[in-house]
């Protein structure tokens, strides 16, 4: 209760700050973690940056909490995995370790003693983190190590939608077609794209379906009730009513691949879908060739602006997922709720309580705002009790998120992202697309991952990659038409069984039950 009161005062205070110098908030000392200034070493390495002692957000956090972080991660190494391996092999860990791949790393080396289990610390010293976990038990389950302990505080993205279907709506209008509502209509639309020359150059060069990642093409099996993944990683497992399964052994997948192979053969799918790679979207859209794709909302909608003058009438808008053969509309991709990023306390840390309190600061309203929006008066202003980015930030030629990274906001420390930060600078087409997806209930229950214990991991490591590679090998052969799925199916399932598929599912299931079933 007192905490809440403190929070309220500090919010009132900080919203009153606009006219007053920034020192005002620190006076109450609500977030002070230690009486004496405390300096902690941190190794924080991600693909984009290492922790910077000069970030404004770090300085502000230090002012509010009296804890100052000092980066010890190498500025010259570019690979986070290597940086971490060097660190852990040396054995002399700094107080805090964070960055990319942190979940894998702490859940592997935590039980061996390299990191501090946080369960008790969270209960006693981190009321805000505890409140978050109480509200989101599935997230708490997903970060547990195999020994049932929490070893890191994750970065928690906000927002539901990541990717969706996009179609050339101007081509639809040109050919007098209506937006496809189900898979059969989609088939007709794509056939028309192929045959009726929507780009009007007299050549039959349209590419009805294209994908930057060929895995996204496979995801289209959801139109035939198949599944490909339950998480934001390709080819992952998924959960159906508490049971772990893999999409690539399902009947819907079989139907889906059979039909995708047919579409491929008929030229509805980019002939080069497996090799065209990341440049395909830019190339096919700017040359007025591509008809439809499944890709990120933010970047894909951007072409509506950037190609406006280059391609006449260009309009590439989101398409609600067409209904599958059984009439279900499914968008399989969703933003991850919890990331393999964040920070952890290492065994050498002598100020574990203070560190925990410091971590908790970023789950208070003020701390969360600091981590999301940067500094009040510099990056944002409080308007009607809400942080709103300043005009010069929104209108700057540099992307908003890049400007925030520069001051240390939106950095993947352990914090809960606030989607409203992104809404403020998303282009209008993206907002429109997300609104369209929000009308329906297209998302599926996500699979947030499991931590395998040593025995389970041994089984998984030995078998899974081999099975997965075999699945992918057959998958591409089927889509390309060099093999026939219906002829192969029985031997395919038998082969997967022989490779130990059941034992992999079994260890995944036992790890899942341990973490998620109460």
């Amino acid at each position, binding site marked *: 209760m007192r905490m809440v009161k403190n929070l309220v005062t500090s919010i009132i205070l900080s919203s009153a700050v606009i006219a007053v110098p920034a020192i005002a908030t620190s006076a109450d000392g609500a977030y002070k973690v230690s009486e004496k200034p405390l300096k902690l070493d941190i190794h924080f390495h991600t693909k984009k940056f290492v922790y910077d002692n000069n970030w404004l957000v770090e300085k502000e956090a230090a002012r509010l909490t009296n804890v100052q972080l000092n980066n010890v991660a190498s500025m010259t190494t570019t690979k986070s995995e290597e940086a971490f391996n060097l660190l852990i092999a040396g054995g002399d860990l700094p107080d805090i370790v964070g960055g990319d791949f942190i979940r894998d790393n702490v859940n592997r080396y935590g039980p061996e003693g390299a990191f501090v289990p946080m369960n008790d610390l969270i209960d006693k010293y981190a009321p805000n983190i505890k409140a978050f976990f109480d509200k989101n038990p599935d997230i708490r389950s997903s970060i547990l190590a195999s020994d049932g302990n929490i070893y890191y505080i994750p970065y928690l993205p906000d927002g539901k939608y990541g990717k969706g279907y996009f179609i050339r709506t101007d081509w639809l209008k040109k050919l007098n077609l209506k937006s496809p509502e189900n898979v059969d209509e989609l088939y007709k639309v794509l056939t028309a794209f192929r045959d009726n020359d929507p780009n009007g150059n007299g050549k039959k060069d349209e590419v009805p379906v294209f994908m930057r990642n060929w895995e996204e093409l496979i995801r289209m099996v959801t139109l035939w009730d198949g599944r490909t993944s339950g998480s934001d990683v390709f080819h992952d497992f998924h959960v159906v009513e508490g049971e772990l399964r893999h999409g690539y052994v399902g009947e819907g997948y079989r139907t889906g691949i059979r039909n995708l192979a047919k579409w491929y053969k008929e030229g509805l799918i980019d002939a080069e879908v497996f090799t065209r790679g990341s440049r395909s979207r830019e190339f096919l859209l700017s040359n007025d060739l591509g008809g439809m794709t499944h890709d990120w909302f933010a970047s894909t909608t951007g072409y509506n602006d950037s190609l406006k003058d280059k391609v006449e009438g260009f309009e590439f808008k989101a398409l609600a997922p067409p209904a599958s053969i059984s009439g279900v509309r499914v968008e399989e991709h969703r933003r991850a709720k919890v990331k393999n990023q964040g920070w952890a306390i290492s065994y050498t840390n002598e100020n574990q309580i203070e560190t925990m309190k410091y971590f908790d600061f970023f789950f208070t309203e003020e701390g969360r705002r600091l981590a999301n929006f940067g500094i009040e008066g510099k990056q944002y202003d409080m308007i009607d009790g809400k942080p709103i980015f300043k005009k010069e930030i929104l209108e700057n030629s540099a992307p908003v998120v890049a400007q925030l990274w520069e001051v240390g906001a939106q950095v993947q420390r352990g914090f809960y992202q606030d989607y409203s930060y992104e809404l403020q600078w998303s282009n209008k087409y993206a907002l429109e697309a997300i609104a369209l997806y929000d009308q329906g209930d297209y998302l599926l229950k996500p699979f947030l991952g499991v931590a395998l214990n040593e025995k389970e991991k041994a089984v998984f*490591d030995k078998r899974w990659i081999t099975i997965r590679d*075999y699945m992918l090998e057959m998958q591409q052969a089927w889509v390309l038409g060099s093999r026939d799925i219906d002829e192969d199916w029985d031997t395919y399932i038998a082969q997967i069984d022989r490779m130990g598929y059941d034992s992999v599912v079994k260890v995944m299931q036992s790890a899942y039950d341990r973490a998620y079933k109460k």
Partner: protein
Amino acid sequence: MEDINHSLSTPEPMLLVKSRRVVKHLRKEWQLYLMLLPTIIWFIVFLYKPMYGLQIAFKDYSVFKGITSSPWVGLEHFYTLFNNDQFIRAIQNTVMISGASLIFGFPIPIILALMFNEIINPKFKKTAQTIVYLPHFISAVIIAGIVITAFAPSTGVINLMLNAMGFDSVYFLTKPEWFRTIFVGTGIWQEAGFGSIVFLAAVAGVSPSLYESAVVDGASRFQMMYKITIPCILPTILIMLIIKIGNILEVGFEMIIMLYQPATYETADVISTFIYRQGLQAAQYDLAAAAGLFNAVIAFLLVITANTISKRVSKTSLW
């Protein structure tokens, strides 16, 4: 007694004499040894010291526990590897791809060197050499990009030519039966020119007097090449061949990673790419070390065999 004592003590003066000779030799030639030193240090630091880490192939390795405190697991990783059909296939593919590279790729630099040697116009010679060396300096990423574009089914140069000749387009990079040809061909195109430098140097070392007397005897240019140049550079050719055989299990890993697809694993998946997929997913360094050790042992045996054969046949050998 005295005799025995005397005979026992004789080795000492012998040794002394020997070591004195060594010291004298070192003092005289110290500059040469000094020049050798960096290479020796390089070998120790980068090749001998890491051998200590090879033991993780027999351990359940944890980076945090360190090499010494990780528990031993014997040959478990080797069992795991050899019970995996995909690993066996990867070995076969590696041997096939390297074998093809060796058979088709090895003679070409030699032929190139001989051809360059026959060019009389120095300007043309230099230009031609530069052109064939160039691909060597292009990074694998760009080469892979060029290959993917050239073999693309819709707009690739190769398929456009096929279409012009009345054939249907082929999606080469997803066809297992085409992968080796494309990969080996690309490798030859990229490296043949640069590889010819060694042979050119060897050709330059052939004594001109041999050619002069051959001219007097009325030999044709072809006869000179066949009877003088090739026999003279044969030792170089054999040494290069032995070295190549030693590297037979090391296939250009980045190129394969960028060119292969699950659809072409059947012929394209080699030992290094297999380890990359298995190791990256779960950070199985111990398993990767086991595969690497296996690789090295096979390569070592191959080098010894090649060396012995070469020694018997032509009296040329590495040691």
